[in-house]
């Protein structure tokens, strides 16, 4: 068994619980964590005792998405790309990174031969929402919050939102990055079920145990009827386009919108950056507090 630093790998009840475990960074997805998730899924794939995988996050958050501390160097204005880099270099870099880090991993999980269940409690933002939604099933705790606030500083959404929630709902939330709570996620089809936070893992593993009653080959075929059926219906094409557009989204920084945010980050770190970015959008009209 591999030695993991950024995640927990715990076999239990005919499955395995993989916990994204960077609680100090709200389980933000850095290179180390995503590399280890690849390894952990590969380990679970070859382990005959494991019939399904549950992916969760440590200590009250699923994950806040890509680690903003990993972000690129200073931007040169008015060009909107990193200092000293040519456009072709930057475009190529983003394009290759997206194919490998996002599209490649998404297809690997999508086509995975055992059910992957996302157990979402707390923040589930940006690329972490894509991770949660590309799981075969997604169960939300009542405190879950989904959103893609990265669009506010010039980054792309993912077509999985459209595939699951439908055209209008996906656009309503992804054009603005607005948060939604667990009930709204259930209504639009992002999740299977909403349960109290303290029953989240129990609900997931009760399902794992039901999966374990069905022959493994049958489970695999029936996963593929759904996942590959949607690929045949065009999901694969939509994701291929998505990956190309992701690179372009990274090159869409405008001085009038982005400079203020980047300067806030230089002075006050990620917190100041988030304040500058998200302040104008608060209060979140579909977030958990709005309901109260």
């Amino acid at each position, binding site marked *: 068994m591999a030695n993991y630093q950024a995640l927990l790998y715990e076999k239990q009840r005919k499955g395995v619980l993989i916990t994204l475990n960077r609680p100090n960074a709200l389980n933000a997805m850095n290179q180390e964590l995503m590399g280890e998730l690849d390894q952990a899924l590969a380990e679970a794939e070859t382990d005959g005792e494991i019939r399904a995988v549950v992916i969760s996050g440590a200590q009250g958050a699923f994950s806040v998405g890509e680690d903003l501390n990993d972000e690129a160097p200073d931007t040169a204005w008015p060009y909107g790309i990193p200092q000293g880099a040519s456009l072709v270099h930057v475009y190529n870099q983003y394009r290759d990174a997206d194919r490998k880090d996002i599209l490649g991993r998404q297809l690997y999980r999508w086509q995975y031969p055992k*059910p992957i269940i996302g157990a979402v409690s707390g923040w589930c933002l940006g690329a972490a929402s894509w991770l949660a939604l590309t799981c*075969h*099933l*997604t169960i939300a705790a009542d405190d879950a919050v989904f959103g893609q606030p990265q669009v506010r500083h010039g980054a792309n959404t993912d077509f999985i939102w459209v*595939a*699951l929630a439908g055209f209008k709902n996906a656009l309503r939330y992804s054009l603005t990055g607005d948060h939604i709570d667990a009930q709204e996620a259930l209504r639009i*089809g992002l*999740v*299977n*079920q909403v349960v109290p936070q303290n029953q989240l893992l129990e609900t997931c593993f009760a*399902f794992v145990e*039901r*999966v374990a*009653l*069905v*022959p493994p*080959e*049958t*489970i695999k*075929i*029936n*996963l*593929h*009827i*759904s*996942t*590959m*059926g*949607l690929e*045949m*219906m*065009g999901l694969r094409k939509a994701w291929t386009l998505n990956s190309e557009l992701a690179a372009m989204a990274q090159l869409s920084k405008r001085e009038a919108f982005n400079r203020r945010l980047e300067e806030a980050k230089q002075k006050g770190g990620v917190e100041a950056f988030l304040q500058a970015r998200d302040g104008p959008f608060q209060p979140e009209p579909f977030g958990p507090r709005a309901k109260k």
Partner: protein
Amino acid sequence: MSEYKELLYEKRRGGVLLTLNRPEAMNAISRNLIKELHEALDEVEADPEIRAVVITGAGRAFSAGMDQGRATGRRRDLHWPYGIPTGLSAAEVIDSWRSESRNFRRLWEFGKPIIGAINGWAMGAGSWLALFTHITIASENAVFAQPEVRHGSNTSFMWTLLGGFKNALRYGLTGDHIDAREALRIGLVVKVVAAEQLLDECFAIVERIALVPPETVKINLQIATMGLDMMGLRDALTLDNQLSAPAHVMLREELRRPLDEARFNEGIKKYLMLRDGPFQPEPFGPRARKKD
């Protein structure tokens, strides 16, 4: 007019009521019943007085699925350790499965609206028949499921198309039952009505359809059905059809043999108890609802 043994054909109120009529076998779909269903559709096609079709089941089931009996269906004793019917080659078995699902595509492509009146159990291929109808109305007694996956069998992509990815997998991977209200929530049916109002509800729709010119109805049916075909549904169903073959060939002796022996020695009831007992109580079935 043809003579039907396993089907009732009753013209009324601008349409026709086709009743799957093998109540002693819960309207299990035998080879003959499929043949008669096609003959009935031929007759409907040629009869301009019939503007729409309503399909329902006699007794307490819509249909329990493909007939499992030896004489009327296509079950044969499996030879171990090969897991294929005695006397057949793997090639013959695979080929026979790949021709199967054409039968329901005819409903999809039919030139007059077909309304499913789901009066009770709609299991396995019975659920597929229900889902392939253009409009589906459920009585409060309806139950939808694909429990055949528990003994090694495939699902249908129609569940993914209508119920959405996550819902289709939640119920398709385990064969878990769902009641009429859950079927309504996820989009398998259009409306849930009291059992005694089911047929009246359906024929009220038939009468409204009869107010619209036939050519217009046909064009508008095709905008939806052929549009989904163009979006990739035909490709997805082709893949589905291909995957149904391995689903039935990849049988594990330790999981399947006890079930077949129970059926041979003690009958279908014992077989079902052995297969479904570990899954009971059904968490989303009608009885689960009454508890909450």
